[in-house]
């Protein structure tokens, strides 16, 4: 077999769908940083305008009903790669010819030129939240103590514990069997199912049908469509239903016993059906016979369902793409020119064996001669905080604008983009100032600049001034967010003047040079990363769509790919202490992930945590402690509090406005910031407004639209009090204790 067969990969490596409560109206996941979702028809075929450009969605709700949020579908494509050097690939086509491996029970594998006839897509969604451990901030990041409390702790019998998993079973769909429903057998939605192996029964587990307020009888559905000869998979998530087996009460931001929601995740695999002609001999007569066969796509994918993205174009301070990129750069030799061993080229940084990897991981470091690109690697971070003034009011009292991007501002783009030229570097001090106030990874428990050399007594606050992975408990505190190590390295190079302004070099004259993500991605990796760039990349307490598990290299089979575990149908793993009772399957990261394993850490129901993640008051008295109890021993120490530190201004808006001349209002007006509000959010999430961007560059503004005032009442301006509600403040801290 001298000739290579084609490698097939599903893209994106990790796709993201989002909950919604409309019937069939949905749109496709955006594949570019800070870009709107893609409009599509009811089959999920993308819409293209007369110029061939993608049509974008700018209405996120049913046009007639502001209490109906459209779902976001995850869309998957299969790319063919001709050999190892092929890093670009090409999306496969029905009728296209590729080199397949053909193998029967009696013949050795051969390579044949096969024509694609159809694709079998298989997806298995599940929700494991109720069966999992309690989320306790950083505790559990590196395994759970045997005594770590479980959610629903009274369920200790393994079979009953498994009943807490929502597991509708896997579905296989194709062009011929194009619709699948992750619904309970016997429900109306299950009747729409035309998937491939309907007759095969599966031991489904769903929550009791009487949970309140909203029952869960589906986790979503699948559609296969064909567009321009490309066969694609559409994955739709749940309806946003959450309910409790008990009288519905929310008592905690992430752990609420008796509750279920219809978030989910799971593996996406595919098998390509192909046919080819082969000479056969019938007696002495030669004849051509068409043979049908199939081959599995070698590199499969994963799908995660998250909650709605209410500000789709607003970029998180750290995106999931950036979070994962940092990990892959440091642990997987993903970009050796950034991080590797000298001379930092690919050839010197391609470890193969375990021993080579170990050596590499020991020796590799950041390349001191790496030159980050200003717009791609620096400005993309620095311009973000300024946009948060449309989702959060930085300083209620002073109204100052610390992130000003205009002339004279701290983040003056013109000044910061100037590379040293001919020995002149007039903006070095500005860059140095910004770099010095960037929080380093070892300053995550520091509020202000710790550098003793800082020239004045008034030490500036470290940036980003956002909550970290654990500002709540005393186990492994991690109070504030820092940019990733790789981002900080880029900033350091930039501070030193080692950077390139690509707009004045090779991209000179290109109108998109300031936005490297302006055009839809054409490569598989481009799609992988584009999709992730709209997902929250921190902090993880527990996070937005997925949690700190993304920091663990063990869960990946390769960069941007979740490792698939093999698992028994109907016997997904449960926490080890329970599994050990009868030898059931316990989680095994080394083996890979199962359906439901990516989202099981997130709060249950998701609405509770989502509602509470606004701002936080952080105790910064001692680096190692989030909670101190001075009263208990009469300690006269002076307690220092950092007030109103936001969580994720781009993922969970706090203060918004409806237009350039409208006042700022609370985004969640009408839903109080307490446990009662959390419960209200279980229904009210669908009534909240979306933020849409207008303008470009420094003039880009985000304004609220589509808020259902009929349900929530008119929005409230900060400072106003409505029926005694304090709307802007989180109560997470009190919940936790």
């Amino acid at each position: 077999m001298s000739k290579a067969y084609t490698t097939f990969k599903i893209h994106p490596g990790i796709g993201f769908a989002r909950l919604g409560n409309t019937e069939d109206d949905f749109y496709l996941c955006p594949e570019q940083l800070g870009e709107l979702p893609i409009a599509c028809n009811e089959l999920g075929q993308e819409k293209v305008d007369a110029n061939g450009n993608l049509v974008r969605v700018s209405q996120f709700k049913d046009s007639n009903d502001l209490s109906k949020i459209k779902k976001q579908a995850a869309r998957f494509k299969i790319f063919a790669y001709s050999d190892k050097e092929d890093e670009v690939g090409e999306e496969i086509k029905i009728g296209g010819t590729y080199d397949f491996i053909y193998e029967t029970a009696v013949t050795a594998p051969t390579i044949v030129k096969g024509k694609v006839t159809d694709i079998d897509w298989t997806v298995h969604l599940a929700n494991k939240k109720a069966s999992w451990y309690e989320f306790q901030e950083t505790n559990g990041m590196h395994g759970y103590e045997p005594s770590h409390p479980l959610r629903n702790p009274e369920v200790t019998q393994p079979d009953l514990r498994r009943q807490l998993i929502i597991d509708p079973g896997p579905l296989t769909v194709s062009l011929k069997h194009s619709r699948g429903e992750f619904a309970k057998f016997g429900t109306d939605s299950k009747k729409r199912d035309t998937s491939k192996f309907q007759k095969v029964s599966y031991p489904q587990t769903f929550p009791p049908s009487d949970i309140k307020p909203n029952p869960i009888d589906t986790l979503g559905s699948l559609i296969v469509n064909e567009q321009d000869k490309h066969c694609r998979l559409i994955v739709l998530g749940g309806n946003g239903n959450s309910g409790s087996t008990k009288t519905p009460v929310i008592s905690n931001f992430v752990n609420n016993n008796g509750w279920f929601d219809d978030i989910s995740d799971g593996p996406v695999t595919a098998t390509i059906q192909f046919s080819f002609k082969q000479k056969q001999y019938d007696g002495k007569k030669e004849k051509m016979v068409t043979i049908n066969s199939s081959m599995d796509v070698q590199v499969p994918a994963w799908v995660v369902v998250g909650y709605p993205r209410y500000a789709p174009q607003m970029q998180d301070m750290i995106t999931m793409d950036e979070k994962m990129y940092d990990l892959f750069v440091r642990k997987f030799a993903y970009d050796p020119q950034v991080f590797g061993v000298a001379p930092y080229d690919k050839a010197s940084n391609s470890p193969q064996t375990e021993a080579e990897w170990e050596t590499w991981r020991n020796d590799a470091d950041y390349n001191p001669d790496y030159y980050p690109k200003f717009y791609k690697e620096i400005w993309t971070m620095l311009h973000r905080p300024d946009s948060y003034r449309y989702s959060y009011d930085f300083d209620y009292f002073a109204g100052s604008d610390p992130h000003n991007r205009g002339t004279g501002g701290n983040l003056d783009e013109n000044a910061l983009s100037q590379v040293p030229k001919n020995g002149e570097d007039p903006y070095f001090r500005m860059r140095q100032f910004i770099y010095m106030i960037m929080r380093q990874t070892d300053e995550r428990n520091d509020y202000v600049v710790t550098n003793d050399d800082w020239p004045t007594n008034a030490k500036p606050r470290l940036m980003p001034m956002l909550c970290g992975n654990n500002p709540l408990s005393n186990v492994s505190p991690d109070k504030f967010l820092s940019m990733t190590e790789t981002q900080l390295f880029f900033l350091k190079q930039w501070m030193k003047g080692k950077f390139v302004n690509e707009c004045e070099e090779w991209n000179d004259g290109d109108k998109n040079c300031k936005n490297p993500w302006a055009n839809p991605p054409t490569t598989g990796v481009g799609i992988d990363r584009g999709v992730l760039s709209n997902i929250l990349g921190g902090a993880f307490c527990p996070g937005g769509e997925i949690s700190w598990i993304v920091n663990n290299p063990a869960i990946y089979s390769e960069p941007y790919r979740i490792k698939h575990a093999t698992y028994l149908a109907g016997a997904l793993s449960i926490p080890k202490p329970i599994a050990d009772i009868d030898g059931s399957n316990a989680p095994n990261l080394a083996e890979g992930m199962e359906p439901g394993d990516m989202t099981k850490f997130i709060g249950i129901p998701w609405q509770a945590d989502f509602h509470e993640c606004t701002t936080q008051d952080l105790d910064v008295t001692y680096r190692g402690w989030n909670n101190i109890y001075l009263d208990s021993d009469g300690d006269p120490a002076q307690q220092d509090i950092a007030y109103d530190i936001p969580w994720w201004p781009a993922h969970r808006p706090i203060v918004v406005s409806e237009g350039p001349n409208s006042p700022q209002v609370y985004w969640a007006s009408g839903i109080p910031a307490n446990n009662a509000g959390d419960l209200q959010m279980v229904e009210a999430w669908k009534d909240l407004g979306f933020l849409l961007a207008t303008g470009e560059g420094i003039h880009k503004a985000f304004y609220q639209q589509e808020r259902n005032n009929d349900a929530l009442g008119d929005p409230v301006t900060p400072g106003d009090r409505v029926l005694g509600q304090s709307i802007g403040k989180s109560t997470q801290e009190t919940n936790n204790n």
Partner: protein
Amino acid sequence: MSARKKRVSLYDQVKNTLNEIQGSTVPSYQGLHAFWLDPEVFLNASLYGQRLIAPDPNESSGSGSHGATSNGGSCCGGGAKPAADSANDENPVTNPAVAAVMQPPTETFIGDCWPSGGSGGGSGGGGSTNQRSAASAIIIGLKGQYPFDGSIFPPLLWDTDKKATTQQIELIAGWIDAGCPLTIAEEDDAHSGAKSLVEVRNDMLALAHGEKLHKASDAKTNHTTKKSKALHIRKEISNLTPEELKTYRDALSCMYTYNDFWQDERSFDFWARIHTNSCQHGWEQFGPWHRLYLYFFEQKLQDYDDSITIPYWSWSEYADANKTTFNNTQYDLGVLPDAVGCFLTAEGLITLKEAKGANGKSLYSASQISKLESIQKKGTIYNSGLRFLKAAGIPYEIINNNGEAAWAEKVRTVYNVLRKDNALWFPNRWPGAMGNPTTYPTKADIKNLLSLETWSDFGGGPSYDHHFGSLEKVHNGMHNFSGGTNPNYPANNKKWEKIYADLGLTPDMQSQENPQYGWMTDNRVTAFDPLFWSHHSNVDRIWAKWQELHNGQPEELNGVLAPWSMTVGDAMSIKKLGYKYVRHYVHHQVSTDFGLVKFNSEKIKVSKSTLEHHKKLEIKIHRVQRGNLPNASIRVFLNDPNANIDTPTQGNEHFVEEVSLFHGSCYGGPGHCNLPLDKTRLNDHRNIHHHEPRNYIIDATKTAQKLLNDGAKDLTVQLVTVGIHGKPIDNAVFIEGVSLNFLD
């Protein structure tokens, strides 16, 4: 008539090229803009930390290595810091024992030491890396190599759709390597030295009149032969210059690095295995097969460096030293040429001093280190590794590695260093007696061999009447002598029977690291010992010499010599194969700018041994060109510095020969009388060109022998030009060189 184009300076061509690639839009280039237009900027500036033109290596800190020839394995062993040092630190037991023999025991190899024509397919040359252009960002960037491969920067130039062609890149690289001359005048200056033209002219005149002495060329022999369009020369191994010896060793070291790649022709073991698989012995194809075997191996070596030929090991030269070693019952006493022995360099000494055992302590004791220091200081060369160990007070120890005998770490570490320092040394070699006294071939033996009249006696019989020829029989003995017997093998040594028993080892004659006999003795593995090649070079030389004296040849000239598609007949002439044997070669380059009146050499630097042992001395006058019309003669003298046109030739023991030139006038169109072009076209089968300069070979053996017998300690050569009219003439004879060829 001759409308010659105006010459454009290289720098102007470079500027035009870059202007053309860039087009009208010039990006910032970090504020340098069109940097190539300002030489001050181009030569000194960096673009995002990348120096556009690498600093001139001659101007910066004289690191000294620049004088070394720039072709060949410049990167071998240098440059890349071995990232996998750990390979050396590993416990030797975990290494397969064979690795130490079959693979280079040098540091783990990173990168490619073999020169090539580049990676092909447009990305442009790999090749030499110590050129200034190769270190210059403008060249790296135009070629699109890291970091200009898109990983950190896109390829140069930026913001243009045009890509530089290979020729354009070559032009700019050539300009950089020529020292970045900015004007035509500077380009021309680069060729002349520091001396003024007048001085140079006066020197040349003095040389052409014999008033100054011609120095011998210090270039490698096969560089001078190439220049004078002569055959390659295989020299006696002890007569290689240090530089020639180093190149040969470097080539072998480089070949060892590819040994993991079984099918790679650059791998040394690839060639050694050909002997294992295909060698011909015991009949008339013995000579022809091995002649081609060496020819093809030598061609491969010449890909590495075209000056390399396989030096021969003239056994009989070393007969005196081996009077008591071969004809003896004691093992490991034999004497081989120094070139293949083992010795310790200062660098090797440091490695051994720093070597740590498994316990983290120094591997060698203080007294061993002190002995090693003394060995290194004295520069002693040992004929076997075992004798080296003994001198260093390091006991030869074996361990049991999964049932195989393997060197203990102390031994392996020393052997690794010795092999690194001399690629011609080989560990499984204990030259000397086999325990069974036989004779070592003396000069008389070789003379007898050469006096055999028939091919059958000398070279063996055909397949239908096969028998060994005498040459092969002598050759067999020398295989055994050079491989020798391992004194530390159980069957050879009672003490070692016990050691093996204690270690639980079963003696294995074919053990990789402790065999019963040296590998030279075993035709299965003999070619893995690099001495093999010089041994066979000598066999081939004796045959070539016999061919000069006799007409005999193999019965079956059509026999094919597998694995090559050449026949016995193709192997009949070493000249056709491009080489000859010269024990020692001394070349003098002569300028053709002035007519030769008299040539007067300095004292010929040649070893005493060569003066004593050579059989023949030929003086070759290279590429003689004649002025138009006047015919002339050249008189050749030895050791007569004052020879002139009046020096008598009759009865003068210094006089060698007078050669008369014969030609007429040259007449034709303009340029007709010029020298012909070099014959480079593969399919040019025309005869030698009329105006191709011719060579003269003069046999000076008798004259030289007489002078030496009369007590002369040195030789000098004089040529005196005499016009056809018997008077001095200064425009009749132009020559390119004079060489002395000492033949065995």
